[in-house]
């Protein structure tokens, strides 16, 4: 089992409740494919530093999980098709830092 961090950006025009159902969908997908979600952070609505596909803002979510290569394969396969996502990034880390949070959720 390896440790991974996964960040994804959801389009702004989706309502906030809707974005939570999307994140739950991917958490289930990780848990199904021999993975285990440890923590989910919500960074909230943030301005993008530059335009991506004509989007100015996006909902940021950050998932820390354990899993294998197959977990990621399935996860990214599903995300590549998803139209509601702007971008995602998976990073492998040696050890999870579950305490420190760099982003606070802003009310806007």
């Amino acid at each position, binding site marked *: 089992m390896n440790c991974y961090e996964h*960040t994804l*950006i959801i389009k702004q025009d989706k309502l906030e409740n809707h974005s939570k159902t999307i994140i739950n969908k991917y958490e289930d997908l990780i848990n199904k494919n021999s993975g285990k979600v440890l923590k989910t952070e919500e960074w909230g609505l943030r301005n993008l*530093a530059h335009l*991506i596909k004509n989007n100015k803002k996006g909902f*940021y979510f950050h998932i820390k999980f354990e899993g294998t290569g197959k977990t990621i394969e399935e996860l990214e396969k599903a995300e590549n098709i998803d139209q509601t996502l702007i*971008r995602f*990034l998976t990073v492998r880390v040696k050890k999870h830092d579950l305490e420190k949070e*760099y982003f606070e959720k802003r009310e806007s």
Partner: protein
Amino acid sequence: MKRKKNFRSNKKNFKHKKLNLFQKNDSKFNKKCPLSGKEAPAVNYKNIKLLKRYISESGRILPSRVTSVSLKKQKELSRSIKRARLLALL
């Protein structure tokens, strides 16, 4: 004597000045790597405050000869800056 004085004042100013891509490096041989050592901050693509110090105004990565970051840490830096760019954090 005069030269020595000048050199010292240069070094003092250096700390407060914002790093620039084209600046002359006066105190190159005195500076230690700011990211190595025991209490150094962790280089991470989420730590934007830290990463912002090592890019120029136009968003380019500053060379290590300007910032005097060690080779190992410079590699980490450039990798995490590129990750942050991908997520539109920088």
